[in-house]
């Protein structure tokens, strides 16, 4: 049996190991799609049932902040791509730096989101005892905010996990002795990060862009 460094015993060669890992990541992402899909179904059902209330409620979301955050995530995805490139080219310091930058952008997203949440809570948009909204159908507008906080909350959790991983990977890139072995892992992390970005790309219009026109 070939015992070579960096290849687990169940695999024959590095190619097989890499392919397996990539496939595994994609299967995981398919799982994630279905994880979010239940919430997307809830959103669709209630938006179709209560179109007016959703339109009212969406006016209370902060479009500028949301757009900014979308741009931040898109930018972070771009930086992530560069990080993957750096890993393939085994440039240790650019890799570490780019990963850290991606993490930073993710953190910026979270901080902005945090301020957005704070503002919304101050306005009484968090469903609960203090919830109030100027809508003819406050009950159904509340449904929008349930879904809003749920979907963005679950998404933010994914971003948060991503930031932690990115930070960890940045440190590993600095200190590891075999930078070459990090290629696949960075690749997979990139897939995850882009996926999280993609989910946001779909959330964005559903939350911020309802009935903005006069």
């Amino acid at each position, binding site marked *: *049996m070939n015992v070579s460094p960096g290849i*687990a*015993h*169940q*695999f*024959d060669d590095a190619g*097989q190991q890499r*392919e*397996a890992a990539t*496939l*595994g990541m994609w*299967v*995981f992402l*398919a*799982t*994630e799609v*279905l*994880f*979010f*899909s*239940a*919430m997307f*179904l*809830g959103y669709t*059902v*209630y938006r179709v*049932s*209560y179109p007016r209330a959703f339109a009212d409620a969406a006016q209370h979301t902060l479009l500028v902040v949301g757009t900014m955050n979308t741009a931040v995530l898109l930018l972070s995805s771009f930086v992530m791509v560069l990080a993957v490139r750096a890993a393939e080219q085994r440039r240790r310091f650019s890799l570490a730096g780019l990963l850290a930058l991606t993490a930073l952008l993710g953190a910026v997203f979270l901080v902005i989101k945090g301020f957005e949440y704070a503002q919304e809570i101050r306005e009484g948009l968090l*469903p*609960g005892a203090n919830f109030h909204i100027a809508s003819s159908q406050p*009950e*159904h507008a*509340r*449904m929008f905010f*349930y*879904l809003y906080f*749920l979907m963005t909350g679950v998404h933010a959790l994914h971003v948060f996990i991503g930031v932690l991983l990115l930070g960890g990977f940045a440190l590993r890139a600095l200190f590891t002795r075999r930078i070459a072995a990090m290629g696949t892992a960075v690749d997979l992390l990139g897939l995850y990060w882009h996926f999280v970005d993609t989910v946001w790309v779909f959330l964005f219009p559903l939350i911020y862009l309802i009935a903005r026109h006069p």
Partner: protein
Amino acid sequence: MKPSYLEDEHSIRSWLLTTDHKRIGILYMVSITVFFFIGGAAATLMRIELLTPPGDLVTSTTYNKLFTIHGVVMVWFFLIPSIPTVLGNFLVPMMIGARDVAFPRLNLASWYLFMGGAAFALWAIVSGGVDTGWTFYTPYSSTYANGHVIAMATGIFIAGFGSIATGLNFIVTIHKMRAPGLTWFRLPLFIWTIYTTSIILVLATPVLAITLLLMALERAFGVGIFNPAMGGDPLLFQHLFWFYSHPAVYIMILPGMGVTSELIACFSRQRLFGYRYVAYASVAIAVLGFLVWGHHLFVSSQSIYAGMVFSVLSFLVSVPSAIKVFNWTATLYRGSIWLQTPLLYALGFLGLFTIGGLTGLFLAALAVDVHLSDTYFVIAHFHYIMVGGMVMAYLGGLHFWWPKISGRMYPEALAKLSALFIFAGFNLTFFPQFLLGYLGMPRRYHAYAPEFQVLNVLSTAGASILAIGYLLPLSYFLWSLRYGRKAEPNPWQATGLEWTTPSPPPTDNFDVTPIVTEEAYNYAP
């Protein structure tokens, strides 16, 4: 010779930290056996309560907790993991000529997730129970029920991630780790069914996870997604729940079909008739199985047009099952049939699954389901498939691969007798329930009308036979570990790569990676 996987190391630590797929299979086997008897104990108490029409043995709340425990434990902590995690873990790498699954550490993590989930569920049971039924319908579960609904849901949620990880592992393993020459149409059908099961695990389970999460949030914080009083829709919960749970019933049958295919081919010494069609049928069941969930909502006030769509699709998904049944039967024709215990179980599966499946057609037929929904007819339907089908297949598979797993033979005569015992007890338990259901006895009833008593007594009588029947294999398997005859590498003269290794196999399975040059089930008469 290398030490077998059992003898490689002996410490408890070496078991709890193992990444060997075979040892992980054993870990699962031990755990789900415990859960089976927990679920069985609840069933026993229920059956005793149902001996008499009034609810006199336990209170109604206790009874409600019993069937919830029974359903939850049997479904998520016994039957869903049963064949995939025990036989699947043990056999998938061996059957495809690999040294292990693709991600051995993830495999171990799955078991820990499973046990973590089980810990929550057991805690919920011990500290007061849950009385929602295994279906957790809102608004009862989210607003009205007492008990530890959230802990139970958390347990299922966590175990669900174990399931997802297992499915992911199998998908990657089957795609990427097959031995040279082992093309898709040379794979044993067991692999096909584990593969299709894994697809369901990966695509359906996350929806259950998020649904239970929403239900728990509703219970804990009053989030109103499913709460009609807050503009939510309880039917949305049912849609989401069954989007998972109908495919999940195929998680609970496909692996059994795979085992049955192996057993029937081996013991009739034939290539499985219509191999390709049986393989395709597995894929068809997995995919179409996602399109029929609304047949659980025929009387729920779902739109009647949606009901019709779901009904016709339910008939459609039954076609591939029919293909399998006919091909299994045809395989016996002109075979050379060796009636050993595993084949007895496989034939039991064939008959009982067919009865269960055919009664599924009664339920899929709209006007008939209006009468039968939520009666004992449904209970009988799914026990015929899940107990008569899947549990039989699991036992058949255990007997078949026991020599490989343990290195010992079980006592054949006693095993045959137990198989017949289980078969008889099973039918006596559940056949009367079809009649009860058609007569109109609703399910989840702690007390019932007196005219239903005779049939209930018969059912309870059957259950006691069944209980003894299940204790028999447990005892002789344990007995055989010590006193059983030593098994040869291939006691059944079966084909399949797993039989080319010693019994029990060494940790790395194969000394050299095998090269496959022939089709599966290449039996000589």
